[in-house]
């Protein structure tokens, strides 16, 4: 069977990633970036198909994502280089500036992503850049709980 992920994300074709979960539509990339595997998170006005922090804009903009993550203790940071004692997340946006994906840094500097309703994968951050997700446009960080410091 042809692996569908490199067909969607050509930079994954070098097999420099690994699948770390089964396929499930019960959670998505935003939830997974926040360490949650039981909800679908996305800004959506009026419907309950997804959850979003109360009081945060439900526009599909990078500003709304930034605002949402600030309510969860994240602050903007300059780059994706791993920092001891912090976890980082990265927001992707397409050419129109519409957010498309969020992923989370793992200890060691690699990143973990939930690919829509497909699997979780471990990958290099920039390997998901391209036609589907666009580019990384925002990196944020928050302190890790004391018992998770590397």
């Amino acid at each position, binding site marked *: 069977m042809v692996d569908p992920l490199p067909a969607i994300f050509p930079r994954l074709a070098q097999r420099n990633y690994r699948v770390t979960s089964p396929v499930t539509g019960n959670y998505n990339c935003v939830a997974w970036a926040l360490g949650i595997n039981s*909800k679908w998170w996305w800004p959506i006005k009026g*419907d*309950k198909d*997804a959850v979003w922090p109360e009081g945060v804009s439900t526009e599909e903009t990078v500003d709304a994502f930034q605002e949402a993550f600030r309510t969860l203790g994240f602050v903007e940071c300059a780059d994706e280089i791993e920092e001891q004692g912090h976890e980082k997340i990265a927001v992707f946006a397409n050419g129109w500036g519409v957010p498309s994906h969020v992923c989370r840094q793992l200890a060691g500097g690699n990143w973990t992503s*939930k690919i*829509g*309703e497909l699997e979780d994968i471990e990958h290099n951050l920039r390997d998901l850049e391209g036609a589907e997700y666009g580019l990384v446009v925002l990196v944020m960080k928050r302190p890790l709980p004391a018992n998770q410091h590397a």
Partner: protein
Amino acid sequence: MSTVPTIAPPAETLEQHFRRLAETWKRAVAHLSSTTVRNNHPAYNEIIGLGTAVLPLLLQDMEANNTHWFRALRELTGADPVPPSAAGDVPEMVSAWLKWAKEHGHQW
């Protein structure tokens, strides 16, 4: 000159039509998280356009695969049985819809 009769391909059944559109939709959006994009894909809208006859197929697929047919069900039934506390919780949303469908006499 004789003419060769052309044989029209058999028309799709509703179920075949639904499965073809659902497959197109799933292939197009499986890797996407945006509820907006997923809920407004042309194939998804075309499924809604099939009308209430497609409800048993939506419920069947939702029960078997937790497929996100929430907007389609709202559009086709005018109902919204998902409580605010279940927002974004896919298994809970599926349960709420299946319970509502049973209570309202839908069969699938």
